[in-house]
């Protein structure tokens, strides 16, 4: 069953190497394996790759590459089955908290109540953080809730905003610019700068959305 195929590594800058993987869970799993090694200054998983940065003042490119190529391919698992406890996130849907709910509903041809029922009816999973500090890509969205991006991104979306786009729900841990339609807002603090570990959500975390209130239609 064991397959000792070397990792596919390519140079993508004078201090950056990219490793190709099959999917986001493999990327997270490989990144978790590499991150404890202080040789890597940054270990950044994407949807189908992991990019590592090394200190080009200390190490030559071929040494960095050799360090990766020494890792056996079977060290990468897809992380399936790692779930743990489910975090419940209370969301206020629509109204000022979800300014795009009504428009998304009319595009999808469903009522706000149906949309909220579909969004709260299943378990979701945080797949990746990225783009902005603590922004969480959450899978598990019902395919009937597939919405496109906003024609013009917002300059500022508040912390806790809940957006949907394609196959993902996006959770904004901090305020920032955003191009996803916003359907609601989580009451819970997703970022606490006073903590050593300030981000509440991590990849692999299972979440369930709970409707605290729904307005608009």
């Amino acid at each position, binding site marked *: 069953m064991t397959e000792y195929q070397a990792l596919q590594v390519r140079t993508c800058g*004078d201090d*950056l190497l990219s490793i190709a993987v099959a999917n986001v869970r493999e990327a997270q799993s490989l990144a978790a394996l590499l991150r404890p090694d202080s040789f890597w200054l940054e270990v*950044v998983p*994407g949807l189908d790759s992991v990019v590592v940065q090394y200190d*080009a003042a200390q190490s030559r490119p071929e040494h960095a590459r050799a360090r990766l190529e020494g890792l056996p391919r079977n060290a990468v698992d897809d992380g399936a089955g790692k779930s743990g406890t489910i975090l419940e996130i209370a969301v206020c849907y629509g109204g000022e908290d979800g300014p795009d709910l009504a428009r998304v509903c009319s595009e999808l041809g469903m009522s706000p109540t149906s949309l909220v029922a579909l969004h709260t009816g299943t378990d979701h999973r945080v797949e*990746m953080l990225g*783009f902005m500090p603590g922004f969480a890509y959450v899978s598990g969205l019902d395919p009937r809730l597939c919405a496109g991006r906003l024609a013009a991104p917002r300059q500022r979306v508040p912390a806790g905003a809940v957006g949907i786009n394609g196959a993902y729900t996006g959770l904004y841990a901090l305020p920032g610019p955003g191009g996803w339609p916003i359907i609601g807002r989580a009451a819970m603090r997703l970022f606490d700068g006073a903590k050593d570990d300030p981000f509440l959500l991590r990849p692999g975390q299972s979440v369930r959305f709970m409707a605290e209130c729904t307005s608009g239609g």
Partner: protein
Amino acid sequence: MSILVERPGLQTTVQAGPRTGLRYLGVPASGAADALALALANRLVGNPPFAAGLEVTFDGPTLVFDTPATVALTGADCELTLNACTCPAHEVIRVRTGDRLAIGASRTGVRAYLAIAGGLLVSAVLGSASTYLPAGLGGHRGRALAAGDTLDTVTGPRTPQDCRTPDAYRPMLTHAWALRVCPGADRESATRDALSALTSTNWTVGRRADRMGLELEGPLLGVTTGGRMPSAATFPGTLQCPESGVPFLLGIDAQTTGGYPRLLQVNRSDRHLIGQLRPGDRLRLLLRTPAQAAEELREKHEAWRRWLPDIAAII
């Protein structure tokens, strides 16, 4: 011990060192866009290279000191006056209580750095005191300075050792820049012509330019992705090109992942220069191999080490 902001300037922020090791959580580098310039200012006033100072953008602030202070200005070339008398950059300036220090508009380069002996008193968030404006993190209340703000300074021993930066260690500012680059992760997304145009064009820095990135004006580049690319890691110095064909270069506040093809990556040795690229400036991109880039980084560190012993931790 505080400094009153009488006039804030266009975008003046508290900046220190970068945030590191947190890109996987979406946390960008932030910190001084030209880290070398901040370190040079701190060197003059006897601070560690990444002590918190002020990053001034295009047009600077007017500050009134309610305490004696030792300060120095580096980076973009701009007018500096103390109580209406012109002061030179790259020299230690002694400020007395009640003095008014005014930093004018930059003429060459974009960002100037004001270091204050002892540093500014700001708390670290996610490992750095630097301001990250998009999320309102760090610095002075997570935002650019506003008129009426007061900045607290760290009191303590102030032991500036040198009065001025030697001429050999004053970075050259220009309106025609060259950045050394290596091939990026998604270079195959560009046509052969586009790849050759990237390194043969005399680009113009576009008007859309901030700490997150800047557009380059020149020929439109042929890029094919067959739809969007899967989100993947981006860094300061990554050059991306959407299918519109207009390339953009990411800056120190660059988002940590992106979905446009990454065609080139500016080499570590030259990334700090991105912070000085001014709309309308000309820019050439010089292609290197990673091995050449490593050698050039070593040479640059060697050249700076006598004045800045910690240069390898700065750029």
